[in-house]
C-alpha cells in the first residue's frame, strides 16, 4: 500500500470520521435489532432464534436469554404474559404411571385437562392423550374406537384404555431422531427440544404407541386460556413444524405437583409417582397388581402400566 501522504492532523480527522461512522452503524444496528420486524419479533430475537443452540449445549446464561426470548415471543404471538422456566429434574426420581382400567369410565376429562394445561393448539388437532373404547374381552387395538361419542359412558360391554406417551426406557424415537432433538432426561421423561426439531417426523414413524404429534399448522390458543406457567421442555408455546408429545407435565411434576391428567381424573384411575421410592403408589401397583404394558414384546420398556382390579 502506498504511504499515506496526508498530514497527521488530516489523518486524525479521517480516523475520527471513520470511528463515528462505525459507531453510527453500531448504534443503528443496535436500534434496528430492537425494532420489531420479522413477524413482530425484533431482528435481534429472530437472529438469536435461528442460531439457538441445542438445549444440552446452552450455557446457563444462554438458557436464561432463551427463556426470556420465549416469553417475549409468547407476548407477540398470543398477547399473553407467560413465564418459562427450566426446572431441573429432582434427584433420585424416575417417574412411572399406571392406569386402572377398571376405574376408567371413558370420560376424556384427562384429554381436556391436558389440552388446557399444556397449551395445545385448539385447532391444530394435537391431543397428547387418546382414549380407546375397547370391546369387553378384546385387547386387539384394531377393534378399538377412537371417536366414540355416546350419550353416556361407560357403554355396556366396553372398557376404556387411555393411551399417551409411554416414556419408554428404551425409546425408539430417541434412536430415530437425526439431530438428537429428543432424549430421555434423568427423571425418565422423554423430552423434545422444540427449538431444535427439524420436523422430519421420523420419530413419529418409530413410535409404536402413536404418542408423538406434529404441528401441521401454527398452534392457536385463545389468550385467556393460555397457561402461563411453562417449562422449556414442556408446555411453553411451540412453533409450527415441530413434533411434540406428552411430557408427564414436566412443568408440574418436577415441582411435586400431579400431572394434569391425573388431577383431572374424577375416578382416581391414574396413579403416578417415583419408581425409585419403595413406598410410592406406583411401586405398590407394580408389586401387587396384575399389570401389563402395551406392546410389551417390542422391548421398548414403557414406564406406563395398565392393570385392572
Amino acid at each position, binding site marked *: 500500500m502506498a504511504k499515506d501522504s496526508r498530514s497527521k492532523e488530516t489523518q486524525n480527522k479521517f480516523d475520527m470520521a471513520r470511528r463515528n461512522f462505525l459507531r453510527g452503524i453500531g448504534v443503528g444496528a443496535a436500534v434496528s435489532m430492537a425494532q420489531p420486524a420479522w413477524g413482530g419479533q425484533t431482528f435481534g430475537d429472530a437472529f438469536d432464534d435461528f442460531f439457538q443452540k441445542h438445549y444440552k449445549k446452552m450455557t446457563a446464561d444462554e438458557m436464561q436469554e432463551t427463556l426470556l426470548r420465549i416469553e417475549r415471543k409468547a407476548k407477540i404471538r398470543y398477547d399473553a404474559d407467560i413465564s418459562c422456566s427450566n426446572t431441573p429434574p429432582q434427584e433420585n426420581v424416575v417417574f412411572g404411571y399406571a392406569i386402572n382400567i377398571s376405574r376408567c369410565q371413558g370420560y376424556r376429562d384427562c384429554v381436556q385437562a391436558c389440552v388446557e394445561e399444556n397449551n395445545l393448539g385448539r385447532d391444530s388437532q394435537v391431543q397428547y392423550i387418546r382414549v380407546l373404547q375397547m370391546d369387553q374381552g378384546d385387547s386387539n387395538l384394531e377393534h378399538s374406537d377412537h371417536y366414540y361419542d355416546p350419550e353416556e359412558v361407560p357403554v355396556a360391554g366396553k372398557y376404556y384404555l387411555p393411551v399417551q406417551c409411554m416414556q419408554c426406557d428404551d425409546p425408539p424415537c430417541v434412536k430415530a*431422531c*437425526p439431530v438428537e432433538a429428543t432424549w430421555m432426561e434423568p427423571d425418565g421423561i422423554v423430552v423434545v427440544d422444540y427449538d431444535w426439531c427439524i420436523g*422430519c417426523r421420523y420419530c413419529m*414413524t418409530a413410535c409404536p*404407541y402413536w404418542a408423538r404429534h406434529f404441528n401441521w399448522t401454527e398452534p392457536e390458543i385463545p389468550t385467556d386460556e393460555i397457561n402461563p406457567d411453562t417449562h422449556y421442555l414442556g408446555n411453553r408455546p411451540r412453533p409450527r413444524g*415441530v413434533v411434540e408429545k406428552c411430557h408427564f407435565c414436566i412443568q408440574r411434576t418436577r415441582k411435586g405437583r400431579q400431572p394434569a391428567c391425573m388431577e383431572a381424573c374424577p375416578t382416581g384411575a391414574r396413579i403416578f409417582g417415583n419408581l425409585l421410592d419403595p413406598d410410592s403408589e406406583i411401586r405398590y401397583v407394580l408389586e401387587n397388581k396384575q399389570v401389563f404394558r402395551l*406392546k410389551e414384546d417390542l422391548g421398548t420398556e414403557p414406564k406406563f402400566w395398565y392393570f385392572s382390579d
Partner: protein
Amino acid sequence: MAILRFILDGLREMFRGSRNYWLWLMVLTVVVAYGATRYAQQVMNGLVVTGMSDQVSWGFYIANFAFLVGIAAAAVLLVIPAYIFHRKDIKEVVLVGEGMAVAAVTMAILFVVVDLGRPDRLWHMIPFIGRFNWPMSLLAWDVLVLSGYLVLNLAIPFYLLYYRYRGKEANFRLYFPFVVLAMFWAISIHTVTAFLFSANPARPFWHTSLLGPRFIASAFASGPALIIITLQVIHKVTQYNVSKSVIDTLALIMAIAMQINLFFVGAELFTDFYNEGAHAASIHYLFLGLDGFNSLQPWIWFALTLNVIAVVILMINPLRTNTLYLNIACVLAFVGIWIEKGMGLVVPGFVPTPLGEIFEYVPTSVELSVAAGIWAFGILIFTLLAKAVIAIERGELRYPEKVSPYSL
C-alpha cells in the same frame, strides 16, 4: 487454469444447442418454477397444505424419495460391467449413467428437504456445528451416504472427463479404487434407505428383513428401465452412439431383477396371508382394503399387473430384444415399481396406526406440484450434465493445448 476452463467450457456446452434443446430446457424450467411457487406456499402456510396427518405422517414426498434412491443406486449396474467385466460398449455410456445417479440423488435429497417441517433448521444436522445423531439414527446414516454418493458421482466423472478434455489418459490406479467404492456405496445407499423403514418394529408392514433385498431388486429393475429409455433418446437426438449390446445387457439385468422382485412380493403375500394375524393388517389394507377403506387397492393391483406384463415381455427373448416391446416393458416396469415402491410402500406402513386407527391419505395439489417441480429439476440437471458429458466423450470439447495469441 485448465480446470477453470474445463468448467466454463462445460457450462457453455450445457447452454448451447438446437431450438428443440432450448425448448426442452424451457419446458422443464417452467415446471420447476411452478413447483417452486407451490413450495413457497407450503413454506408460508406449513405442511397443513399437504394431505399428511398424524396418522399418515409420511406421504408422497417420501414415496418419491424411496423410489429415487433406487434409481440412483442402479447407476452401479453400468459401473460394474464397465470396470469389472471390461465391457467396452458399456464403458462408453457409464458416465451418462453416473449423470443419472447425480440427478436422482439430488432429487431424493430435495424430496426429503421439502418434506421437513423446519427446513430453516437444516443446519442442525451438520456434525459438530449442529448435532448429528450418527451412528444411531438411520436418517443420519441416509444423509451421510446420500451426500457421499453425490460427491463420488460428481468427483469421479469430473476427474475422468477432465482428463478426456485434456486429451490425456486418466490414472487408473488413482480412480479405480473410488470406482469400486462407488459400487459398494451404491448398494449401501439403498440398503440404508431400506433399513430406514425396516428398523421400525412399530410398523409391521416394513419390519421385515426382506425389505432391503426388495429395495435392491426393485431398484435394479426400475433403474435399467429408465436408463434403457434414456440411452435410446440420447442415441436418437444426439450424435452419441449407444450400442445395442448395452441395451441388451441392461434388459437382461432388468429381466432377472423383475423376476426376483415379483418373487419377493409373492413371498410377502404368502407369509402374511397364510396365517393372517394383526401384523398383516397393512398388507390386507393395501391389497384387499380394510374396514371399508380401500383407496390404495386399485393402485397396487394396477402396479402388480404392469409388473407382471413387463416381466413376461422381458422373459421372452424375442420380445426382450425387440425395441418396441422392450420399451413398453420399461415404461410398464418403471411406472409399476414407482407405484409399488412409492405410495404402495410408504402409506400402508401407516395404515392402520399403531393404535389400530384407519385413516387414509390422499396427496394434495401442492404435493403433486412440488413433486413435479423436483422431477423436472432432476431431469433438467441430467440434461445439462449429459450434454456436457456427451460433448467431451465425443471429443467435441477439448482443451486448447497451445495457448497462442492467434488461437480462437
